[in-house]
């Protein structure tokens, strides 16, 4: 029998898998399965295990150990490599998150196999897997293939079709006995960002982005207000970040975050090539800019040529009105 497709679980650090796992598991099933989840955590929950089963994981390899939190790549890599040596999965997939990106690269090096990072498409071609991944920050697409199994890939969020959760499904839970090595690096502290209460940029289904047209840091509050109404993350262009208006973690584009939300709305964003590279795979693009010649209008599905300071409050008002109905 062909080896399984492993899905490495990204969780909320409180015992629940993140929603993006529905996309990874859905894609693994589409590639033919069998689908197995590999979950490294210090504490899993029954709800979390049920959630993975409901999405379609037939088996969960549960690696539950206090030494696995907080994430350290050098620790995680050993038990998973040990397990892979005996279970021989044919693929290992994970979503793109800060820790999975690092972990999967480290694991690929340990296993001596290739890694396709930030993939946006996976397709079987006979006995081979071909991944599609944006390069040059999305200016081109690259097709890549592996010399051997397991095929390892990280998957960009919001691109792959999520599995529908089906209640009543169950997964076989295996708790393999594996060696968790002592860590060389030690955890000191976690500093939480002041929460905006809005979703994380790379995970959000709706992203609002403010560019140079925002005129200053104090004006982002109007985007945050709109974001609060429709559940959107608020990002910024490089021009706005370099001007010091927003911290770099909010930057969208070639030297910031690459995003693929269902809806991207740019306000006062001109559409420099390196910004477009970071958001052009968004499903629907809206541009609001005073300048009708702004390059962003060339890739926008909907555009309004107007002052963002008039448009944003109107949008907030209109969405509020609809939500109250």
């Amino acid at each position, binding site marked *: 029998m062909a080896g399984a497709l492993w899905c490495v679980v990204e969780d909320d650090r409180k015992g629940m898998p993140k929603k993006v796992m529905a996309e990874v598991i859905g894609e693994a099933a589409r590639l033919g399965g069998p689908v197995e989840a590999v979950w490294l955590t210090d504490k899993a929950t029954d709800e979390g295990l049920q959630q993975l089963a409901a999405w379609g994981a037939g088996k969960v390899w549960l690696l539950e150990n206090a030494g696995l939190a907080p994430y350290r790549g050098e620790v995680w890599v050993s038990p998973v490599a040990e397990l892979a040596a005996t279970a021989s999965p044919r693929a290992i997939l994970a979503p793109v998150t800060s820790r999975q990106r690092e972990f999967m690269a480290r694991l690929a090096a340990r296993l001596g196999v290739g890694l396709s990072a930030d993939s946006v498409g996976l397709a079987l071609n006979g006995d081979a897997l071909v991944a599609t991944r944006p390069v040059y*920050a999305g*200016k*081109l697409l690259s097709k890549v293939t592996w010399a051997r199994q397991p095929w390892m890939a990280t998957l960009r969020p919001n691109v792959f079709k999520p599995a529908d959760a089906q209640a009543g499904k169950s997964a076989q839970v295996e708790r393999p006995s594996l060696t968790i090595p002592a860590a*060389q*690096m030690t955890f000191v502290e976690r500093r939480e960002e002041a929460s905006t209460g809005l979703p994380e940029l790379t995970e959000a289904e709706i992203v609002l982005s403010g560019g140079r047209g925002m005129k200053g840091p104090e004006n982002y509050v109007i985007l945050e207000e709109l974001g609060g109404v429709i559940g959107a993350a608020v990002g910024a262009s490089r021009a706005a970040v370099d001007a010091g208006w927003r911290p770099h973690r909010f930057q969208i584009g070639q030297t910031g975050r690459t995003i693929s939300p269902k809806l991207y709305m740019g306000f006062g964003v001109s559409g420099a*090539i390196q910004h477009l590279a970071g958001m052009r795979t968004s499903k629907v693009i809206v541009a609001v800019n005073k300048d009708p010649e702004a390059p962003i209008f060339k890739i926008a599905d909907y*555009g309004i040529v107007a002052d963002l300071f008039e448009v944003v409050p109107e949008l907030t008002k209109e969405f509020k009105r609809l939500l109250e109905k």
Partner: protein
Amino acid sequence: MKILVMVKQVPDTATQVKIGSDGKQIDTTGITWIVSPYDEFAVEEALRIKEKRGQGEVVAVSLGPDRAKEALRSTLAMGCDRAIHVNDPALAAADTLTAARALAAVVKQEAPQLVLCGRQAIDDDMGAVGVQLAEVLGWPCASWIMEEVVDADAKSVRVGRQVEGGLEVFELPLPAVLSAQKGMNEPRYPTLKGIMGAKKKEIKDVKAADLGLASTTSELSVTALEALPPRPPGRVIPGETKDAVKELVRALREDAKAI
């Protein structure tokens, strides 16, 4: 303290890249080449560590064709002491793991206490070489770091790594690999004196054979490059702002079903 900085030469962010005649690589005609921006943060941080300690050596390392020398030269102009250029056609199609193995061989020969690199090169955007280098060496690694403090004895480093929703602070024993995230510093511009001085600094050429690599075969290979599918034509919604906004919201909900 000796620090190695890994740098890669990439097309400038403003460059419109085109597919080359073999369909697998970009057409390099007319491209302006730069040091990958994240690698510049790594170079800057390495120089600051050396300056703060008042002694040490910063060595820039690059894997790439002949033109990569320009990238190394600009790191020397910024202040790196010398450079190593892994320049071998056998490594031209190296994947991240092959590159990591080659760079690890350089690290073993140089035996630094710290290796710095950028979080990813902005050409293939894999973001894998730094951590794979650490794995090959058996060293700890912290990726996407925003800050670092090396202790007085150069025995450990405390770093803050950017994660979703915050910063995680770790202490790593040295030697270790760190990858720099944007925002950790503001890279300096080379001074005229720096640029003149760089011409006299050593760039050592290294071949795959010098590194004793068992194999240079890639585990992952590019089969094709493709242009992005064109986006469907859009429409500009005319009218007074208030009406245009109403129509936009209607279209987003009813036509595009985006919200």
